[in-house]
């Protein structure tokens, strides 16, 4: 298949592009909107805001999520905040500055037009959320408060304590509820999309499984929107919720939606390390802790099982302060993460041994407590200390925290054009599941911004534009494409339930996959190791289909079956991630190739050869995907090199 990767972005001055584009887009007359049916899969910030807004406008919307309530989408867990170029602090922020920071943060691997639009819309999001009753932090005078986040030089982050994602999602969920009550949105909780229905080259519906009774059903529509979140759980252990998965986007990929930059996955340096092989997920500890905590590891490997209190100063290596004297403990996420990994790879990791390795370094508050007192530190980080203590049983006031990096976010995702449409006509993707705005690295507090910009302010226009070019035309329920999609789903479920040599629960294979890609396609990527992983992956996949054990039937509430299906897709996506990491023969942002690092561990970009989006086509064989390139052109900013020495 020939893909012409047209970004369909408008031309002209950056500031005018979105305005111009909005004017150029077609509209659907309010009286005609009710004739159209739109499917929105996902109820996180992206999906919830999309469904609510389309419902308000008068379209008929069907909304789906796998949780028991739309309010539980993983967006609920976001802690830190949401960026917006309001410049309420009068500290020199502007749309242009937020745009520039985001492009630079993404290490010049994203599209200028999209990122500018995101920065432009950020201000509307805050207004919208406040109007819905989202309780952002306030100053004593009653106005909205801001903080600086993730190394930004301006205070542009709006927040609601450490629960910003929860509060924003409840805002979107309440708007969604209003439309459900009004009959404009039909809600399908505990319903999982398992297949995309494509008719005459257009996305026309989905096949779902009712997770309560196992019923397989087809839903058709005039267009389909995927807002199904990120794929960090491919690594098994991540900070994502347990249910986060890539199945919806992977089904779409197999139907012709190109997958962009799959190897761009972000690692967060400060998570609570794994404590045993039973570990089911990793918990994020806010980045802000590095403002007062000092990161260290024992100087000598033989000290790694000593109690930290028994190690005198000269037996400790404050490796960030040593290697990056200017920024010290505040170096960016990826640099801090790789340095911690190197210390552990040297055998200097601390904490319990899991699978023969100690993966953890200390984050020590004793100096700050000595200087400022427990009370001040408690005020700053009390809730985090409490959470840490609940999980580990250790009090960070008395003994240093142990931290280790973990997978946190996926910048890669379905390729979309400026209208957020994938390469399948009529299939849109928004939020973390598309690749659009963060390039090779996402800045803190900008995922929430993107999800809501997509859902409240971009899709309502671009979907209207798409529908204005198509007559509403319902699909006959007995259409051949529907029955074949349903039978594909059924036969896949049957296969999962009847592996010939069934012996291991699905998690067994998920752990194998996770360990393999974490070691080879995680914090640092080495070509030889990637090739090795690429050899093993098809083997693990074969074993999975031969040996996976799922008890119970498909006609009942069956969580093992749900997980098995998701893991089957992760096993394919994991391979594409490694293919992409190997193909991108440079380092950039989160993608640190061991053969393209400076002596100080900085990533070395190769703009001459790799200034493109890698968009992969499914060829019919997972192991031989076809690469398409969207060349990036920088008309307004000049790609520069970062330094934290």
């Amino acid at each position, binding site marked *: 298949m020939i893909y012409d990767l047209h970004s369909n972005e408008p031309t002209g001055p950056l500031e005018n592009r979105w305005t111009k584009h909005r004017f150029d887009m077609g509209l659907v007359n309010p009286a005609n909107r009710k004739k159209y049916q739109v499917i929105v899969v996902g109820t996180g910030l992206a999906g919830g805001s999309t469904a609510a807004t389309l419902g308000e406008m008068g379209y008929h919307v069907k909304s789906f999520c796998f949780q028991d309530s739309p309010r*539980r989408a993983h967006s609920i867990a976001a802690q830190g905040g949401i960026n917006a170029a309001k410049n309420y602090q009068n500290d020199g922020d502007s749309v242009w500055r937020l745009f520039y920071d985001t492009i630079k943060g993404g290490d010049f691997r994203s599209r200028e037009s999209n990122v500018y639009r995101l920065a432009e819309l950020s201000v509307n999001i805050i207004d919208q959320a406040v109007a819905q009753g989202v309780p952002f932090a306030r100053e004593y005078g009653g106005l909205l408060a801001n903080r600086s986040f993730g190394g930004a030089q301006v205070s542009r982050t709006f927040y609601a304590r450490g629960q910003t994602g*929860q509060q924003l999602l409840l805002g979107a969920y309440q708007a969604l509820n209003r439309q459900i009550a009004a009959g404009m949105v039909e809600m399908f909780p505990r319903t999982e999309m398992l297949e995309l229905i494509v008719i005459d080259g257009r996305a026309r519906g989905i096949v779902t499984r009712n997770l309560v009774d196992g019923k397989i059903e087809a839903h058709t529509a005039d267009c389909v929107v995927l807002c199904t979140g990120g794929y960090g759980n491919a690594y098994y252990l991540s900070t994502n919720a*347990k249910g986060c998965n890539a199945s919806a986007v992977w089904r779409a990929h197999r139907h012709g939606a190109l997958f962009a930059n799959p190897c761009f996955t972000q690692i967060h340096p400060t998570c609570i390390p794994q404590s045993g092989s039973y570990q089911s997920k990793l918990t994020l500890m806010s980045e802000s802790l590095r403002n007062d905590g000092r990161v260290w590891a024992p100087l000598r490997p033989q000290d790694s099982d000593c109690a930290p209190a028994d190690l005198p100063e000269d037996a400790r290596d404050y490796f960030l302060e040593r290697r990056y004297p200017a920024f010290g403990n505040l170096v960016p996420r990826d640099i801090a993460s790789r340095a911690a990994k190197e210390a552990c790879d040297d055998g200097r990791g601390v904490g319990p041994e899991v699978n023969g390795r100690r993966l953890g370094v200390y984050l020590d508050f004793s100096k700050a407590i000595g200087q400022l007192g427990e009370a001040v530190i408690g005020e700053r980080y009390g809730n985090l200390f409490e959470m840490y203590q609940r999980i580990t049983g250790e009090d960070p006031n008395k003994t240093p925290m142990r931290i280790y990096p973990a997978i946190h976010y996926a910048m890669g995702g379905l390729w979309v054009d400026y209208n957020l449409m994938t390469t399948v006509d009529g299939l849109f993707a928004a939020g973390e599941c598309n690749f659009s705005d963060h390039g090779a690295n996402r800045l803190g507090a900008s995922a929430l911004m993107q999800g809501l910009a997509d859902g409240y302010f971009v899709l309502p226009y671009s979907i209207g534009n798409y529908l204005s070019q198509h007559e509403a035309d319902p699909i006959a329920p007995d259409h051949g494409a529907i029955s074949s999609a349903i039978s594909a789903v059924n036969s896949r479920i049957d296969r999962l339930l009847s592996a010939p040599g069934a012996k291991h629960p699905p998690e067994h294979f998920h752990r194998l996959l996770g360990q393999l890609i974490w070691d080879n396609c995680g914090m640092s990527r080495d070509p030889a190791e990637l090739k090795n992983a690429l050899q093993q992956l098809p083997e693990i996949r074969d074993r999975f289909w031969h040996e996976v054990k799922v008890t119970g039937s498909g006609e009942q509430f069956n969580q093992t079956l749900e997980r098995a299906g998701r893991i089957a897709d992760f096993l394919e996506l994991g391979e594409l991630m490694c293919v992409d990491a190997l193909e991108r023969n440079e380092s950039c942002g989160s993608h640190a190739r061991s053969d393209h690092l400076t002596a100080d561990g900085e990533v070395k970009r190769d703009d001459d050869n790799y200034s493109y989006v890698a968009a992969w086509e499914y060829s019919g064989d997972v192991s031989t995907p076809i690469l398409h390139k969207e060349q990036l052109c920088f008309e307004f900013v000049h790609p520069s090199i970062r330094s934290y020495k």
Partner: protein
Amino acid sequence: MSLVLHIWRQSDSTAQGRFERHTIDEFTPDMSFLEMLDVLNEGLISAGKEPVAFDYDCREGICGACSLVIDGIPHGPQNATTTCQLYMREFSDGDEIWVEPWRVGAFPVVRDLVVDRSAYDRILQAGGFISARTGSAPDGNTFPVSKETADRVFTSSTCIGCGACAAACPNASASLFVAAKIAHLGLLPQGQPERNSRVHTMLAQMDTEGFGFCGNHRECEAVCPKEINIDRIARMNRDMYRSLVRR
């Protein structure tokens, strides 16, 4: 360390349930309660048996999915903690633990420890929102909100919708859940236009769903993982009477 679990098993909403006994031969203090159940389940699957169904997602205490009654207490013995944030160090070697689903008529059992909490969604659909059409909002700083009010709003809006309040209540009342939302929206200037109608429609829906009314037992507040205070219920009642006068 080892323990004995008595776990509620029920194949679907209409089936007769029963307790099933399991011994856990090895658990460590650093395991979460749900990870202990994961280990049990992987063992059951390997042995060809059906695992115990239970709800979970974030495992960070924020999504509100997890919902076990442990030794008679929704979310178990630790204060201000969801089930997923309960760690095995709270238990001792040889303990015998009883694990059940939320026991509320309005939350029918789906399977084993999983219940249907869509009644809570329907209560919120009945009025738990501020009607603010996308694109129509004024600048975020148009209505100043004092810090104290904002903080009070936040301590109401932090509800995770887990259902523990109703599960703990002898009257199976959803009052704390409803009152938290009414306080969240009703304390804000943006929430005033719909304040009078909201309290009526939401309480009516709570009644329709079959929840009882508040008898001031305060069990809800004791189990709420977000420590939402029962004074919100008093506020809700006041709002209700106030609206009767002003309607």
